[in-house]
Structure formats: C-alpha cells, structure tokens
C-alpha cells in the first residue's frame, strides 16, 4: 500500500510523464507512435483521445481490482480488455456525434486505440502496484500526457525533416526508429529527477 500524500501523487505523475515515459521507456503505444501521420494537429488530438481512454480504463481497472478480482484473479486480462474495447467503442460514437470532422481526421487510429498496448499496459501496471483510485487517475494522466508528448515530439520532428534531404534508404520506419532512439536517450536524462 503506498501512502497517499501529495508528494507521492506528484512522483507518480512525473514518473509516468517523463522518467518512465510510456513510449520512450516502456515501449508501449508504439504502433500509433511510429505510424503517426506526421501532422502535429492529428497527434495532439489522438493523444487527447488516448488520454481520455486511459483515464476511464484506470478508474475501471481500479474498481475491478478492488471489488471483483480478489475473488477471481484469473479474470483480470479478459475483463480489462472488454472494458477497453467498450470504452473505445463509446468514445468513437461520442466523437462521431460531437465532431464529425475530428472523427474523419482520426480515421483508422481511433478504433486502433483498442490494441494500443499502452492502455492495457497501464491497467496491468496500476493493478500490479495496487494503486488506489486517486493514484490510478494521476497515473493515467501522466501516462497519457507522456504519450501525447512523445507523439507530438515525433510529429514535430517528422514535419521538420520533410523539408530536409533525407536519403531514400532511410526514409520510413527506419528513420522514425532512429529518431525515437535519440528521443529515448534524451528522456533518459530525466531519470533520478524526482528523488525523495
């Protein structure tokens, strides 16, 4: 049981955002990260949608972990994945109704949030560490923020690189991966940032 002080919450948030960034340190959420269209705006919107799903998943995961799973631990994976699939379905309908243009611009990436390992990963990590409700929420906020941050950085860098002379051999995923490697190295500098 971790103690629920403000300092603890801050550590969880900053850790997920920077130190143990979900994309650059834990390798979660790579499909959208590498496949991102390179447009800054789409990345921000996808990041927000994903953060929203993360928060709902974290809260439901906490509820399941507290009330249901102690009696049936083996149901963990299947209940989580059902929650995630349903949440994404719900968000799809919501966005379609509220902003059809956003729905169109996100395209295939919206249903793909279901197989985003970051979401399932968050649920598993949070329940492994027995986070309380507030802690899960803060964790999801940090993870979503970190994911959005990584996506935005990548999209920005790709937009820049479109104007420069990249050898044809490297173009595509290889290039993205090398950029990701350098970004990851930069983020390693955050380790030890928050030291109690």
């Amino acid at each position: 049981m971790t103690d629920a002080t403000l300092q603890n919450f801050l550590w969880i948030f900053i850790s997920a955002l920077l130190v143990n960034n979900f994309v650059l340190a834990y390798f979660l959420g790579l499909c959208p990260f590498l496949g991102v269209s390179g447009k800054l705006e789409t990345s921000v919107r996808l990041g927000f949608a994903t953060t929203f799903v993360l928060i709902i998943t974290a809260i439901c995961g906490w509820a399941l972990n507290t009330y249901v799973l102690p009696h049936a631990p083996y149901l963990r994976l299947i209940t989580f994945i059902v929650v995630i699939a349903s949440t994404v379905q719900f968000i799809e309908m919501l966005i379609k109704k509220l902003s059809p243009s956003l729905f169109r611009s996100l395209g295939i990436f919206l249903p793909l949030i279901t197989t985003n390992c970051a979401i399932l990963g968050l649920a598993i990590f949070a329940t492994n560490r027995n986070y309380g409700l507030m802690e899960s929420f803060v964790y999801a906020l940090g993870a979503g923020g970190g994911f959005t941050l990584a996506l935005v950085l990548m999209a920005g860098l790709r937009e820049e690189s479109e104007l420069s002379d990249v050898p044809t051999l490297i173009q595509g995923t290889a290039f993205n991966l090398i950029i990701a490697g350098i970004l990851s190295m930069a983020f390693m500098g955050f380790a030890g940032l928050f030291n109690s």
Partner: protein
Amino acid sequence: MATPTTPYEEMMKGLWRENPVFIQVLGMCPMLAVTNSAVNALAMGLATLFVLVGSSFLVSVMRLLIPKQVRISSYIIIIATFVTIIDYSLLALFPKIHKELGAFIPLITANCLILGRQEAFASRNGVGRAVMDAVGMSMGFLFALLALGGVREILGDGALFGINLFGPNFEPWVIMILPPGGFLTLGLILLFFNWITEKRKMQQLKFQLSAEKV
C-alpha cells in the same frame, strides 16, 4: 510477387517476404521491450507462437459461426483466453522467465500482429492454411525477436543466451540493453533490410536491361 498456393508457401511467406516485423511493421511493442536478452526474446517468440496458432485455429474453425458485426470482439475474447492460458502456464512451469517477461505476457493480447492475422487471414481461410500462416508469421516474428535480442545482448552484455562471450575485460555497451538501444538497433536492422531490398531491385533491373539488349 506470386501469391502463395501451397500450404508450405503459406507458412514460409511469414518468414521473410511478409515478415511481420520487418515488412509489415507489426508487433512493435514486445519487439523492443523483451529483446534485451536472447533468452527473453526466445520465450516471448514461443509464447506468441502458442497464442497465434491457437487463436488462428479456433477462429478458422468458428469462422462460419461468428457474425460479421461481432467478429472483432470475438477474436479479442479468443486471443485473451489463450494469453491467460500461457500466462498461468509460464508462471507454473518457468517462474523465472515469467518474471523477466513480466507484464508483456498479458500484453501479447494487444499485439496487433495477432488480431491482424485473424482479420486478414484466419477468418477467411480453412483450418490447415490458417494454422500454416500462423506458424509462419510466428516464426518470422521469432526470427526478428532473436535477431534483435541477440545483437542487443552481445553488444550490451557481452553474452549470448547467458553465455559470456568476450571475457571479463569486455566493456559492455550498456545503452544497447536500455530503451534507446532497442530503437536504434531495430532502426538499423530495418535500414539493412531496405538496403538489401534496394540491391535486389537494382540487380533485377540490370538483369532485365541486359536481357532486353539481347
């Protein structure tokens, strides 16, 4: 490229020509996370093999019974079941490996490769072909995992499968087993793949040109 016709070809295409990692760029998350050593890579590859073959088999058998509207949810339920089975089996039989792979065993469920194969292939083909395809794709995936894991372990730890290669004076390139090393190594391997593909194209082009001259 000719479409595969025999079951054997169905299987082999997953190894190189339609390799899930290098060509299709699927299954990225576990690729980078568990390849910090060759043993972990091997374990993850075999676990994925179990889940993919099992799911493809079941999906293919049930393909006439599953209505189109709920197919994705059904696939996910099937996949999650197989993953839970392998998760508990590994915990019972190989607890050390289970600890190393950690949360990435349940994360096999989110591996786009598996869901992708159900949607693209297993739901539209007979059991025999579906299983062959699953075996081939898993082997391609395993091959990619081992390639990455091997390189990272050799450079980052001076060992392969835990066997020390270079002796005590080798100063390991630690970044290789850290996240940046994963990204960079995979990027370079993809680069290498692109280069080979380019070379082949050039050779084919030269061959065609010289054939036309005759």
